[in-house]
């Protein structure tokens, strides 16, 4: 029975988790030379979920972040002649970061990241190049800096998050290989190693979380930058979006995860 009771030297780990769901909207620019050599521009909208929490181990020093998002963009050709593309994006990333408290209000966190994205670009005007599939899995690094203050007497956290995939693998047709040829069975060379020599991706988030009682109101900017070159194909996706989100801080109480408090 003694083991079931917390002793004076053992306390339950308090790992507050910040969960926020955002609705995003903004502008998008897409170049996918498999579909068209012309850069298209338009608007984009999406949903984004973020889960930020201290880790089960060493929660004072480590945090983990999970983000999941889905987006849709409708983009038009610059001549505005009625040509358009539909873009579907799905993305997820998981980051583990070591954090340091630089000053009482400032925190810096750095760590490795694994992220993946996929989706498709559909060009109704294409013939046998009517769609371009997208898939990538990468390892990279992420950094987060935050500043805690107050606004109208309520806690306000300003933060900036920078995610940089470094290496990974991605799907790319073998030049102007048709999806019909892939369907027929020729699947050689579709998966490519990704590095900064053939693609560069970056995600930037700058946001403000304002705590109103148990609710967090978020206002954020998200920047997504992607450029890739593969066997004569060029791909560029840029999105600048503003997100408005709601969430809260949730405390995870688990008797299985204990933190030793040294006297």
């Amino acid at each position, binding site marked *: 029975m003694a083991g079931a009771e917390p002793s004076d030297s053992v306390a339950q780990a308090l790992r507050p988790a910040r969960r926020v769901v955002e609705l995003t909207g903004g502008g998008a620019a897409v*170049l996918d*030379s498999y579909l*068209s*050599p*012309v850069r298209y521009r338009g608007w984009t909208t999406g949903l984004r979920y973020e889960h930020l929490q201290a880790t089960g181990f060493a929660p004072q020093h480590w945090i983990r972040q999970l983000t999941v998002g889905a987006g849709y963009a409708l983009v038009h*050709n*610059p*001549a*505005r*002649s*009625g*040509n358009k593309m539909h873009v579907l994006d799905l993305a997820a990333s998981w980051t583990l970061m070591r954090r340091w408290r630089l000053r009482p209000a400032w925190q810096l966190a750095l760590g490795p990241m694994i992220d993946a994205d996929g989706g498709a670009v559909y*060009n109704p*005007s*294409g*013939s*046998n*190049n009517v769609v371009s599939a997208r898939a990538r899995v990468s390892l990279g690094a992420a950094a987060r800096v935050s500043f805690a203050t107050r606004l109208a007497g309520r806690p306000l956290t300003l933060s900036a998050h920078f995610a940089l995939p470094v290496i990974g693998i991605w799907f790319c047709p*073998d*030049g*102007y*290989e*048709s999806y*019909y*040829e892939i*369907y*027929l*069975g*020729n699947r050689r060379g579709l998966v490519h190693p990704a*590095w*900064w*020599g*053939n*693609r*560069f991706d970056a995600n930037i988030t700058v946001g403000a979380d304002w705590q109103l009682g148990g609710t967090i109101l978020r206002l954020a900017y998200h920047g997504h930058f992607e*450029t*890739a*070159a593969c*066997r*004569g194909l*060029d791909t560029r996706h840029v999105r600048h979006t503003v997100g408005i989100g709601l969430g809260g801080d949730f405390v995870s109480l688990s008797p299985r995860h204990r933190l030793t408090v040294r006297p």
Partner: protein
Amino acid sequence: MATRFHYILIAIVLASLGGCHSPGDWSNDPRGNFEALWNEVDRHYCFFEYKDVDWQEVHDRYAVRVHDGMSDYELFDLCGAMLRELRDGHVNLIAPHDVSRYWIWERRPVNYDERVVDEFYLNFDYRRASGIKYAVLTSNIGYMHYGDFSVAIGEGNLDHVLNYLSTADGLIIDVRGNGGGLLTNVQTLVERFIDERTLAGSISHKTGNGHSDFSAPYDYYFEPPVNHIRYNKPVIVLANRGSYSATNNFVSIMKSLRQVTVVGDTTGGGCGLPFTGELPNGWHVRLSSAPITGPDGRLTEWGVAPDSVVTMTPADAAAGRDPLLDTAISLLTSH
């Protein structure tokens, strides 16, 4: 040490820029659109060497006629004329007001009159499923006309068609005037006439901007369908110059089967899988990009020759005769 660090840093930055090189950006004016079109074709068209086309010479001949003050109509006509140098029905410039084309079948004998077949051979008594018109002729020969490979063929529909025609002594597949469509429909139809895994052809694609930058040809095979009706009796395929693109592919594969005879005219060709590009002004250009050979490994861009050449004159049509169909019936009844 600091210098070495700087060199490493510069190397990393330069390596990262490798993913940022820019595709051609052309201005939206007559010159820019002309050059964009020429370059799009130059990079992606797949039959320059096969057709012995000097594309640079074509550029030089047409580029001098481009000037800033020309209208969209004038530019379109000039670009359309340039594209016709490729002699390819799959090459089109698509603008809001017109589609440029090189459609060889427009200038050749049609060798087909649907009304003659419907009235004098089918007596307007036929069934229709999945875009296939079918009947058993009075000579007890099955007849099916498939006019558009864009119309999906349902496996169940095809079972009904072949089951209905199974009592006939042979089958005529009429693809005259069929301008093509989906290659997956070619596969669906051909697979009903094979008993074993069969080489259907090979396909390759452009892997670079050079005129000879192609992937190694990839052989592809068709498999006989499981739990669906297969047809093993003699078959005649009727073709004409209007049998183009996917239909040309269908005829080339069917011709390689031992129980199949092709009657009529040489098909229209078109063995390059078309891709579509775009110009700064929003016009589209469609062009052959991925060559597909027949089972014999040969390109059929200029068409598939029939086993038996038969033509149809206007006098035949006026008299209610279809010599191609008559020949097919004769061949099957005497088999």
